């Protein structure tokens, strides 16, 4: 009897005397990488961008020149700005398929008012952006109050806004010469702000970076921003913690509409004219940029800088492959694979433990 007790007590000396303990399984290299990426979601797209620029610089002649690199920025400027709007919506576990239609309709409102009706320019621009906000708010209302799924809502409003665009524009473009004659400030975002070493940085590119910075700040450091993350992460918990989810959701879609309206102004400068048949592929292009940038389609996690980087990555791949002389369906192939890898990575990160 006494020997068993001594053994038992001796065994007790060696055991842990904490009340409870969990066996941590994230000591491996892979787990520490996963933690790093979870905490700094912008790390992956930033790395991918740098690596792809270097790889294409090696593969394609002339790719590393300042002219070509700044060209990539110019080509993704409008996509990048709309991707900021798309990020906000995807953060709430929603999606917006109507962003392209909102963009073009807003630019037509600005164009027709300023060029054809002679309305003073600041008023025309404000009207265009207001229409964009209204369309976004309409989406938000249907999602938040009528409780329809965002995919279905924006699929429907895509057709509605596209029809409105065709009706309002009369299927006619507003030509560059008319814009230059009556309202040249509409073209401002297409002009070069600086031309260092043969590169060309447009005001549109500057606007993209500024806007990304502003919304990064808003999302990280304001209550509204945290609410947006919360709604996407867990709507029930958000409601229970006192967040007015309906109002916040509508405001998210409305702000997205406002950003698309602003993008409409930038787009006028980028293309030089306002055409009803332009920007038809931008809906999917922005979703691609957001996903490659590391934002989760399931909501709650993501970053604005990531989406801008995602847009740049697509641009780098497209231009790099083009300069390397590769047929352009391989560009689609490459971008598609990037999306798959990004989504797979997101799934890997979502798992709490193996």
């Amino acid at each position: 009897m006494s020997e068993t007790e001594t053994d038992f007590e001796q065994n007790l000396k060696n055991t842990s005397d904490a009340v409870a303990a969990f066996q941590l399984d994230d000591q491996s290299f892979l787990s520490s990488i996963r933690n790093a990426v979870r905490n700094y979601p912008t790390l992956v797209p930033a790395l991918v961008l740098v690596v792809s620029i270097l790889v294409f610089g090696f593969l394609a002649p002339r790719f590393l020149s300042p002219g070509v690199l700044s060209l990539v920025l110019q080509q993704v400027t409008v996509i990048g700005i709309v991707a900021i709007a798309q990020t906000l919506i995807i953060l709430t576990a929603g999606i917006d398929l109507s962003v392209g239609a909102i963009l073009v309709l807003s630019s037509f409102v600005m164009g027709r008012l300023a060029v054809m009706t002679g309305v003073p320019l600041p008023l025309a621009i404000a009207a265009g952006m207001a229409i964009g906000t209204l369309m976004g708010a309409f989406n938000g209302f249907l999602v938040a109050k009528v409780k329809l799924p965002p995919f279905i809502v924006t699929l429907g409003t895509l057709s509605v806004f596209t029809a409105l665009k065709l009706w309002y524009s009369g299927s006619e473009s507003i030509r560059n010469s008319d814009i230059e004659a009556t309202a040249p400030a509409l073209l401002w975002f297409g002009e070069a702000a600086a031309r260092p070493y043969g590169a060309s940085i447009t005001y549109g590119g500057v606007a993209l970076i500024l806007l990304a910075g502003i919304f990064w700040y808003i999302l990280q450091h304001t209550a509204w921003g945290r609410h947006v993350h919360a709604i996407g992460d867990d709507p029930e918990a958000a409601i229970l913690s006192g967040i007015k989810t309906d109002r916040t959701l509508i405001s998210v879609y409305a702000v997205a509409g406002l950003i698309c309206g602003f993008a409409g102004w930038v787009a006028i400068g980028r293309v030089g004219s306002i055409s009803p048949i332009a920007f038809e592929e931008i809906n999917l292009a922005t979703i691609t940029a957001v996903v490659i940038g590391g934002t989760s389609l399931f909501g709650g996690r993501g970053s604005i800088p990531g989406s801008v980087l995602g847009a740049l990555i697509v641009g780098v791949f497209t231009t790099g492959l083009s300069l390397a002389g590769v047929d352009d369906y391989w560009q689609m192939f490459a971008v598609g694979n990037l999306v798959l890898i990004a989504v797979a990575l997101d799934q890997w990160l979502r798992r709490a433990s193996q």
Partner: protein
Amino acid sequence: MKSRIIPSTIGAIALTVLAAGAHAGSHSTAACLITKNNTNPFFVKMKEGAEAKAEAAGIALSSYAGKLDGDAGPQLVAIENCVAMGAKGILITAANDSVVPALKKARAAGILVIALDTPLSDPDAQDMTFATDNFEAGLLIGRWAKATMGAAAKDAKIGMLDINKDNISVDVQRDTGFLVGFGIEVPNLKILGSETDSRVIGHESALGNPEGGVKSVENLLAKNPDMNVVYTINEPAAEGAYQALKKAGKEKGVLIVSVDGGCPGIASVKSGVIGATSQQYPLLMASKGIEAIAAWAKDGTKPSASDGLNFFNTGVNLVTDSPVAGVPSIDSTKGTELCWG
């Protein structure tokens, strides 16, 4: 709830049948116009021309359109609807050849099928095509560009702005027509990009709109900054091309040619943005199509092709303010009189 649904549904169906009956009774012949989309001004004007002529000829015209270039799905639905409603004739600008089986079925049901602007590769799919000779349209601008460049033509650096890589017939014909007109050998006239002449920098997909035009020219300039000739599939793409050249400071030294002949495009020729454009006549295509359907409904006459061709050529004119010897052309003032849109 249940008791209200059935009577109201019956009521709705009855109203629809009555309305359709009332409408059908007012005109004797029904016809359908199916265009590629409602966004390209070319098809919008074609539709307007068809509707005006149909009104005058006493034909009830129903219009349908696809959404995007190359999207045949909505067109297939439209063809089936037209057959079902007993139309006498179908006017169609086909998105691609996948509509051929449906059109053959329509012909078998006694419907006159007329292809507008875009011929179908299978000759049995249509009774007649009313179209521009798109190859000739390309030929004219190619010859004009070569003559305008003179001695510099043998070292030209040419950028090609097509719609996309799908080898749509209109796209291929204008593109290869331009190259042949410029004097470049094209081994395969049925696809894009078969030429090996080093003067061609590359083909970009401009999608036929200004945004695509800007991006395409930027990409081509990145490949070769000395580009001095730009072929564009249509005038919206040419507008974008000019903007991109202007931003790069190169608009003075580059020739832009295009096809379409819409009024905004002719204005671009006048202002020097476009060097020369081949003008086509969509309103004529549409009105001739309606005339053919009226004749078919009246006494079964079918339209006949132009001499030496297997389609009815609605004509093309080169519009330029810098004419060259050996290439017939009209100036922008005359072009403005004839323009559409």
